[in-house]
């Protein structure tokens, strides 16, 4: 019964490609220049998803501790690489992003497993790792962008503090705090409208698969808690580990030149 509800025929999938065509037409007509990027990203998504579907089926069937761990490590690695790539010309190493994700995701997953909210089985661990890493990655990205922006906008103020003898931490002022806030804000905003505007992925998926809404909502509440803690931890770590890199050994601001 469950499979019937969520089944999509190949024919409907092909027809739904019309939606991609709509976005291509808009891009063409409005001269947005997004056609190439749209096609590439759609093809990439299709290929990635097909591969992942087979890998997931394999991992779930084998149900091996090491294989599951490897799968989670791959997600962590991909998220770190992506986080690094998005930060154009910014002094954040891959390592900072990696540690921030590991911290945010690791602590959150550990709490979930030890509290018994999720079972340490691949079909729970792997998708939840994906969700945690994704939100944390977006938060870290926002932290980096806002640090960049604020250090550029406030370079005079930072310089004036340094001139008065402030060390880099003191000279940074409110920048760290605001960067963390920027990182967490979208998560908090999206939580505010949960159920009002968005019926989020986990919950919708479970309901569509025929699970009782009351049960589905329990999962959603758990997911909400989970993304809150992972974005908070990752944002704080990323901001504190990165601000110092905007200063050189002479305690002077060294702004990255955009690539």
């Amino acid at each position: 019964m469950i499979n019937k509800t969520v089944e999509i025929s190949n024919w409907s999938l092909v027809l739904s490609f019309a939606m991609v065509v709509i976005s291509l037409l808009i891009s063409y007509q409005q001269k947005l220049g997004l056609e190439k990027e749209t096609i590439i990203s759609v093809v990439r998504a299709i290929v990635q998803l097909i591969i992942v579907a087979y890998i997931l089926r394999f991992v779930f069937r084998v149900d091996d501790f090491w294989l599951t761990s490897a799968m989670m490590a791959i997600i962590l690695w991909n998220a770190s690489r992506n986080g690094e790539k998005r930060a154009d010309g910014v002094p954040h190493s891959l390592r900072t992003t990696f540690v921030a994700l590991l911290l945010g995701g690791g602590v959150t997953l550990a709490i979930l497993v030890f509290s018994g909210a999720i079972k340490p089985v691949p079909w729970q661990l792997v998708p939840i790792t994906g969700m945690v890493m994704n939100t944390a990655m977006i938060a870290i990205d926002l932290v980096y962008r806002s640090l960049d922006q604020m250090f550029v906008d406030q370079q005079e103020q930072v310089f004036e503090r340094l001139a008065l003898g402030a060390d880099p931490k003191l000279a940074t002022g409110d920048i760290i705090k605001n960067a963390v806030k920027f990182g967490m804000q979208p998560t908090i905003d999206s939580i505010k409208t949960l159920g009002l505007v968005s019926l989020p992925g986990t919950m919708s998926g479970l309901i569509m698969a025929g699970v009782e809404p009351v049960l589905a909502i329990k999962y959603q509440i758990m997911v909400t808690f989970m993304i809150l803690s992972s974005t908070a931890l990752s944002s704080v770590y990323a901001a504190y580990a990165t601000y110092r890199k905007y200063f050189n050994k002479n305690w002077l601001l060294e702004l990255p030149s955009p690539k």
Partner: protein
Amino acid sequence: MLLEVKNLSVDPILAGINLTVNQDDWLTITGPSGGGKSTLLRALARLQDGVRGQIDLAGKSASDYDLSTYRQQVSYAVQSASLFGHTVRNNLDLPFQVRQVPVNLDRQLELLEKVDLPSDYLDKPITDLSGGQRQRVGLLRNLVFPPQVLLLDEITTGLDAQTKEVVWRLVKMSQTDHHLAIISVTHDSQEIAAANRLLTVKEGHLDD
């Protein structure tokens, strides 16, 4: 000798600068724009990268001081201070935070009074201040704890005659009270005329 500079260079802006300053000295530096005056002051305050040569403060090499202590003692007042934080108080608190000592409210109010700003200005948002008020608050930050050397980078540029008067009165008073050595960079003809020791920075060199 309080501050002694030997063969100071900043590629490609300054070369072979020699300079000595004593307590109670007032040195005026002038010269064409882009000649390296600000760079010289920043180099003296250790606020400049790529500085070569020797700077001694009170008989000790500048590099033997930790950066914070040195910058507290050789205090650089910026041209057109932009001020930081939200209020005047944030700016006058920083020197206390730098030294990790409790904020002395009386000292802050005393300083505000010296530059003709009423005490309720302490909680005034910096966005409500005029250019002249900003510049005065900017300079007060350097004087909350009087330094040994005060470096003034065209601090009265763009100020009206009355505000200039207030600023110079404060600087002179601080020098008399605390025996500061002052190095002032300026374009102002009156200040140049009043200088008792005048140097010119031109194309990266210092001339008497």
